[in-house]
Every structure is written in structure tokens, then in C-alpha cells.
């Protein structure tokens, strides 16, 4: 039977506020355990939550970026359950009145664009961390993360393959970084995905029973976990079994998912509006203010790159796929306005290759945009050829200095003196009579031989354009 996969994602984006959502404690990652947990985070008797307005503003920013309806009156609820890393015995979240209502975002896959619906996005606080393997017979609890603001972004079940799910997750990942509400760091847990996966016979409208996959902390694992789950469900259904509604944990090491809890074991969270917090009222003025502050979104930037710089659809797509990538590219253009294509090629070619090879994020690149910008200037003013520039880049990457320093110290300046090049060309022609003969009898390809010889003689410094012209006229 042919099956159709149906996927919806729940993404938890940690909002990059300085302090927690309901307390003044810092949110910085990696501090000593329990040093960033104040009385409120510890859930001491008598303490009360106070909403961090920054978290609200960031959530609004996201809503506006996906053209969503903003609920100008939204309500915090208590989600009640007991767990040692949940100090109050309830998590403050939003159930019936989330801050962000319905919105949408486009994904592009293999040239096709598809719109993915976003059901809602709501604010909530993160729990602490239970560490089970630190002490024998005890679980250690670190409450530094407790109360960190999260925006839970819930998609419609609109995705039909693991690839689509990954494209959507990446799109959201890009967006939250673009608008500066989340650092997107997946290793540190700032951006986490849960996937709701079900399958149904192709053509059937009714959704199949879904499993929720948790604990996925990379796009690679997201794709693997979904494919694994789809296979598992297919095996069950094709053997005449039934898929159980449950929560499953993805184990990246063993590459398997295993049941965490069934629907029957699920908590009754006894949600009710938190009486310690007033409903959040968002004025039209605030919405207008945040809308005005919204930076250029990826789609807008892509369109501008095409229109303004004449980039291809593909190049514009790649360059706007990450905020820092686009920023880097635009920095190059500040001094190389007329060289958009050259800049694009360098970012997508040499730079990206080096970053990938060394697994470095672009914002940590050893060659800054300002530094690369100078090298590109030297290419366009014919100081070095594109080929030599690659060697210069390599030296810059290794920290040997600026483009000009390297060109100077290594003597890589392009030879543009016609007399000098002419002397070398004459010598090569004189020493290679058989090849001259071949060229004259119509073998155009042999020209490359002469170029090679000349480049060898000049250590690649001869201006390729000049050299070519001269060879042709002398041989012709």
C-alpha cells in the first residue's frame, strides 16, 4: 500500500532575554549549577511571578514576522504536574489564549514553494534540569534553566516528508535569528523540535494515530527520527497492527525511538488561569512600534538581492538562508558595490567550503567580512588574479595577515607590464616549435599549453587576460 506521511512540529525557541520570564535572574548558559536561580525560580513559599516585558515583545515580533494574528489580550495558565526540576509543581504556560494566533511561512524544496500553516505560538517558562548520572542513588537538580522564556511554535500538520519538516524547521530557525529573538543554538538547547508523526493510506482524509517524537537536537536527527518513525508505523500497519498514541524518545546514539509514555499514562495537567498574573494587554501602539522595528525578513531580503544586485534565485536563496551569511555578504558589498556576483561566489565558494571543512560558524570565521572585502577589491582592481586570490585567502585563513600584506610579502602582485610578459611569451614560442605548429594547423586546445608555460614562468602572476591576448596575436 502507498502511505502518506503527515508531520506537525512543535518548536521551542528560547527567547534571548537577559533575565528570566518571571524573575530577575540571569538566563546565561553554562553557569555553575543553581547560581542563576533566585527565590522565584526556586519556588519558595510566598514568591510571585512578574512578567518580563521583553519576552512579550519578542513573541510579538515573531507573530508579526509570520503574519499571524496577535491576541492583544492573552492569558497565562498553570500546567500542573509534579517533577523535581519543576519547582512550583506547575509550569506557567498559555493554553486557551496564546499570544500568537494563526500564521504561516513558506518553504522551498527542490524549487517548489509550499506554505506551512502555524497554528499558534505561546509563551511559557522552561523547567530546570534533572541530572540522573551524577550521584549514586540521587538525582541532581539544576534550576539555572528554570524560568527561561520559551516561545512554543506549533505548526499545522502540513508537512508530508521528513525533508519538508527539516525545511520548515530550518526556515523557523533562520527567522528567529533574523528577527533577533533567539540565538538558535541547538547544542545548548536554545532551539528544540518535537515532531508529531502519523501515516495514512494515500488519499485518505482522516489522520492516522500520531506519535510524538521528543529529544531531537539537530536537523540531521530530525530527519532521521521522522524517517525511522515512519518506517516503524508502516511496519506495524502493514502487519495489521495499530499505532499507539504515545510519546517516543529519539536516541541518536542507538538510532532508535522508544516509548516514553502512552496516552493513558499522560498527565491530567489541570490547567487553569494563573491567578498571580493579570491577562497581558497589548496596545495597538505597541504593535505598531514593534512592526516598525522589525528588521528585513529573509523573503524580503532575498527579493532585494535579486532586484538590487542581479543575483540568481539560487544565489539569493543560499545567501539569505542564514542571517549571519546575509550580513557577511552585505558587508562585502559595502566596498565592492559593483561586484555582487564576485562577492556571492566568494561567500558561497571559498569561504563556505573553508567554514564547512573546519566546522566553524560564519560569525566565528577567522577571515572577517572586512578582511575578505579587501581581497575582493584586489581581484577587481587586477592586483591579483582569481586563482592567486585563493592562495591569498588560504594565507589569510591561516592568520598570516591582511590581503595586501600577503600579496606584498609573497610577491603575488599580478604582472601587468606588457613588455615583461612579451619577453616571456617570445621565449616560450621560440622553445616550443612543434606546439606552435599544432596551433597553426587548427588545434585551439594547445593554447592552454602556452598559458600553462607562461603561468609557470611567472608563478601564476601574469595577468591572464593580457597573456591570452598576447599569445593569440603572436601565434596567429
Amino acid at each position: 500500500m502507498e502511505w502518506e506521511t503527515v508531520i506537525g512540529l512543535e518548536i521551542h525557541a528560547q527567547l534571548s532575554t537577559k533575565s528570566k520570564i518571571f524573575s530577575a535572574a540571569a538566563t546565561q548558559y553554562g553557569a555553575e549549577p543553581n547560581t542563576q536561580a533566585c527565590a522565584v525560580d526556586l519556588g519558595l513559599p510566598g514568591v510571585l511571578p512578574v512578567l518580563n516585558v521583553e519576552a512579550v515583545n519578542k513573541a510579538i515580533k515573531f507573530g508579526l514576522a509570520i503574519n499571524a494574528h496577535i491576541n492583544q489580550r492573552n492569558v497565562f495558565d498553570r500546567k500542573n504536574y509534579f517533577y523535581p526540576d519543576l519547582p512550583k509543581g506547575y509550569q506557567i504556560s498559555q493554553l486557551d489564549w496564546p499570544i500568537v494566533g494563526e500564521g504561516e511561512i513558506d518553504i522551498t524544496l527542490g524549487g517548489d514553494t509550499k506554505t506551512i500553516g502555524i497554528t499558534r505560538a505561546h509563551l511559557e517558562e522552561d523547567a530546570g534540569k534533572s541530572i540522573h548520572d551524577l550521584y549514586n542513588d540521587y538525582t541532581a537538580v539544576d534550576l539555572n534553566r528554570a524560568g527561561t522564556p520559551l516561545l512554543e511554535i506549533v505548526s499545522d500538520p502540513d508537512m508530508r516528508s521528513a525533508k519538508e519538516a527539516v525545511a520548515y524547521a530550518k526556515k523557523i530557525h533562520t527567522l528567529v535569528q533574523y528577527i533577533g529573538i533567539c540565538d538558535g543554538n541547538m547544542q545548548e538547547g536554545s532551539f528544540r523540535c518535537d515532531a508529531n508523526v502519523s501515516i495514512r493510506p494515500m488519499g485518505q482524509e482522516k489522520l492516522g494515530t500520531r506519535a510524538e517524537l521528543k529529544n531531537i537536537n539537530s536537523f540531521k536527527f530530525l530527519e532521521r527520527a521522522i524517517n525511522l518513525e515512519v518506517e516503524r508505523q508502516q511496519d506495524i500497519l502493514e502487519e495489521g497492527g495499530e499505532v499507539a498514541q504515545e510519546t517516543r524518545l529519539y536516541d541518536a546514539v542507538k538510532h532508535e525511538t522508544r516509548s516514553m509514555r502512552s496516552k493513558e499514562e499522560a498527565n491530567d495537567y489541570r490547567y487553569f488561569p494563573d491567578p498571580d498574573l493579570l491577562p497581558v494587554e497589548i496596545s495597538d501602539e505597541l504593535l505598531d512600534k514593534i512592526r516598525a522595528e522589525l528588521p528585513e525578513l529573509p523573503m524580503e531580503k532575498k527579493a532585494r538581492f535579486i532586484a538590487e544586485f542581479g543575483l540568481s534565485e539560487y544565489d539569493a536563496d543560499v545567501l539569505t538562508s542564514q542571517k549571519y551569511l546575509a550580513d557577511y555578504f552585505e558587508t562585502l558589498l559595502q566596498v565592492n558595490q559593483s561586484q555582487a556576483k564576485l562577492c556571492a561566489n566568494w561567500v558561497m565558494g571559498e569561504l563556505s567550503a573553508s567554514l564547512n571543512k573546519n566546522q566553524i560558524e560564519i560569525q566565528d570565521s577567522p577571515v572577517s567580512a572586512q578582511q575578505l572585502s579587501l581581497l575582493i577589491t584586489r581581484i577587481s582592481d587586477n592586483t591579483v588574479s582569481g586563482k592567486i586570490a585563493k592562495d591569498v585567502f588560504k594565507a589569510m585563513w591561516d592568520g598570516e595577515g591582511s590581503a595586501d600584506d600577503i600579496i606584498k610579502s609573497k610577491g603575488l602582485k599580478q604582472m601587468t607590464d606588457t613588455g615583461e610578459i612579451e619577453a616571456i611569451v617570445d621565449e616560450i614560442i621560440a622553445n616550443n616549435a612543434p606546439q606552435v605548429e599544432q596551433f597553426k594547423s587548427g588545434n585551439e586546445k594547445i593554447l592552454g599549453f602556452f598559458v600553462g608555460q607562461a603561468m609557470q614562468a611567472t608563478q601564476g602572476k601574469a595577468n591572464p587576460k593580457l597573456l591570452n591576448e598576447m599569445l593569440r596575436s603572436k601565434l596567429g
Partner: protein
Amino acid sequence: MDVHNKTIAQLSQGLKAGDFSSAELTKHYLDRINTSELNAFITVTDELAMEQARAADDKIIKGNAGILTGIPYAHKDIFCTNGVKTSAGSKMLDNFISPYDATVSHKLNQADLVMLGKANMDEFAMGSSNENSYYGDVKNPWNVSKIPGGSSGGSAAAVAGRLAPFATGTDTGGSIRQPASLCGITGLKPTYGRVSRYGMIAYASSLDQAGPMTQTAEDAALVLNVMAGFDEKDSTSANRDVEDYTENLNDSIKGLTIGLPKEFFSEGLDDEVANQVMAAVKEFESMGAIVKEISLPNSAYAIPTYYIVAPCECSSNLSRLDGVRYGYRCDDPKNLDDLYLRSRSEGFGEEVKRRIMIGAYALSAGYYDAYYLKAQKVRHLISDDFKKAFKQVDVIMGPVSPTTAFDLGSVKDPVSMYLADIYTLSANLAGLPGMSIPAGFSQNLPVGLQLIGDYWSESKLLNIAHQFQQQTDWHTQTPGDKS
């Protein structure tokens, strides 16, 4: 006249005049507390009190004392006090030394008041007789075989028994007014949001409100001046200027319109209590007030509404008491579930567990709409009744409690106990300010008169109460030193 019978206003004058020092005064009250049989305190902070008193005396001598500098008081054990055990009357928090001050505690410290100790109370403020305390029953100073009322029973007994010039209290369903009534003192529950709840151990967050328990309305005004105010740590506190509550005490109440809700004078109200209340109303008439009968048609639903809303909120508020980070933990837990189950089963008393279970049930999937949501709707109706009433009258008067103080141990059925709050719950559900003032006696036990005002009308209520106390002497009568 014994110094302990003086009001705050009188003590303040005495301190300034050098008639006695705060240290002497404090020592006097500590001695009375330490020989008292009322069990009004859970913790007596002798050393801290003497230290605070000496610091206050320094300020008085140097001439930079405030009105309340050096005045001792009893602090209900529901307010967190930095470095001092804060138990909320529960075994669960018997080992809890608060590492921080409640906003109210902080404000009282800032005003140079002297904390004598932490007053006994019903466990987590759940109760109407102070028989639910882990630290034992509190006795009514007028008759030690009677209950003092609850949940601020220790606070009321301390003031009535002259163990403190005033006490703090909290009122979720009548916990200031009812014990004030049964102990013959003045108690004020302000408008919800007037006093910060930060650091006040939560029972039912949308109903809890702290207030003063004093001998007189004038004293209540002086203390409210310190307690009240916006607090950015409490999102439900009102960002509204604090008046000087003493300013209008002497205003004339001629022409004041008093509403008597007929629902407050029906079946279940003790005849003698009714008579005393009506006599007090007559007194107001003689002072130029006009009396009108009004109706609060939904007040019959106050008890069922309250006993859904409050347990729902408390079931969640008390979840943090899980034996994990602080408070009581059972011996040798086998696993996490066992730790939760036994710590909470052993740490909480019967009434607290009953309300947690009622609340958890009412919030469960499938019951939420029928209970919690319905109760919220009724709550609106009850508020609307008051809004309509306050278009016709300036103040509502009636009994505080259907009876005078009953015998310790005599009411065993929880539902009968809940009926003790029948006249006080509505003000909490609507968030309105309410007062209890002494209005006579029935068989040597005090009877209180309840005043309910419109939102933010504390000043008016205190004015009305003060004027009444200028004409009557119920509030100056004491149980004597037999306690």
C-alpha cells in the same frame, strides 16, 4: 491604666514623651506572651524583638522616629520573615527558615516596628476556628474553652488578650474579620490588590489579602498606612496612590446611607447576634445615617463558589511543598513517587488535604467547566450584585459571623465549619474591602459588626468605624487579665 491596654496612638505618644521606652514596652509584652495560655504564638522572637526595640529607642532619642517607631506587634506566621521560622501553621514548614522578607514584613521593618513573634494560625490559612494548626488550638481570651476564630486566630487572640498592640492578619474568606469579631477587636480586610501579597504564603491567590488587626479603627488606619501600597513584585497589587488613612477619620457620617442585605439576616443567624448588629445599626441612625434594605441575590452561592475557587487555587499553590527543596520530607523514600506521596501525606493536615483534593478534582479534565468555570461565572454575578448595591448605598452592614465563638472541638463536620464564613466570603469573591468592629456582647462573648465598602473605600470604612467608636465603648472592653 495598664500600658498593654493602650492603643497604638496612645503608645506612640507615650514613647515620644518618654513615659516608657520601646525596650520596656517590648519586654512587658514578651513577659505577657511568655505567661499566656492562649497559645497565640508559634514563635516568640524575644531577642530579635529586644534588638529592634533598642534600635527604635535610639531613633526616638535622636528625634528621627516615625509615628510607629518602637511599637510592638504580632506577625501572622504566613508572612515570610528573613531568618525567622515561617511555618504557616503547618508541619510541612516546621523547619522552614525563610531566606527573605515578605513585602509586608519589609515595610513593617522599615517603619521601625518591633516584631514580638509569629502568630498562630490555621494551617495555610485554611480554617475558621484555629483548630487546624500543627501548633495546637488557640484559645479565645474571653473564654478559654472557646475558639478564637480563624484563620488569623493567633493574631486576634494576641490583640484581644493584650499580648500585642496590634497584629497582622490575612483574609481569604473572612480570616481577619471573623476572628476579629469573635475576639472583640477591629479587623480590616482591604480591597484586593491594596496590600502586596509578595512573601505571604499563598492559599488562594485571587482572594488572599492582608490587613491590620487592632483595638481601634484609628489604629487600623495607622497600620494600613504602613502595609498598603503598590509592589512591583506582585502583579496583582494595584498601582494606585496610598492615601493617608487617618485623614478622614473625623469626617461626619451624617447622611451616610447604610444598606442591610436581607440575605444576611435570614435563617441560621443567631438571634442575639442579630440583635446586637441591629442595635449597632440603630446607633448609626442616631448619628444621622440612613438605613435601607437591599438585596444581594447571589450571596447564597458564596459558599459553594468559594469552596470551588479557593481549593482549586490552593491545590496548585501548595504543589511546591513537595519535599524536594525545603520543608518536610518523609524518612527513607523508596522512589520519587513515594517521596511525594508520603511527604505530602505526612506533612499536611486533614483540612489542607481535603481542600487540595477538592481542588484537584474540580480542575480535572471533564470537570473543569462544570466546577471552576461555573464558579468563576457565579463570582462575577456576586460582584455585580455589589456593584448594583453600591449605586444605592455608601456602605453595607451586617453580621460578621452567624454565631459568637463556639466551644473548642464542638464543630467536627467540615461543612458546618464552612458555614461560619457565610457572611464574609462574598467580599473576598468580589475583592471588596470589609471590616469587623466590636458591637456588643452575647453571653459575655463579643459580637462583631461587619462593614463592606466599595472598591478602594478603606478610608471611608475607617471613618465610619472610627465615628462609631467615638460613640460606643465596645472596643475598649477587655477580657481582663484572667487569660
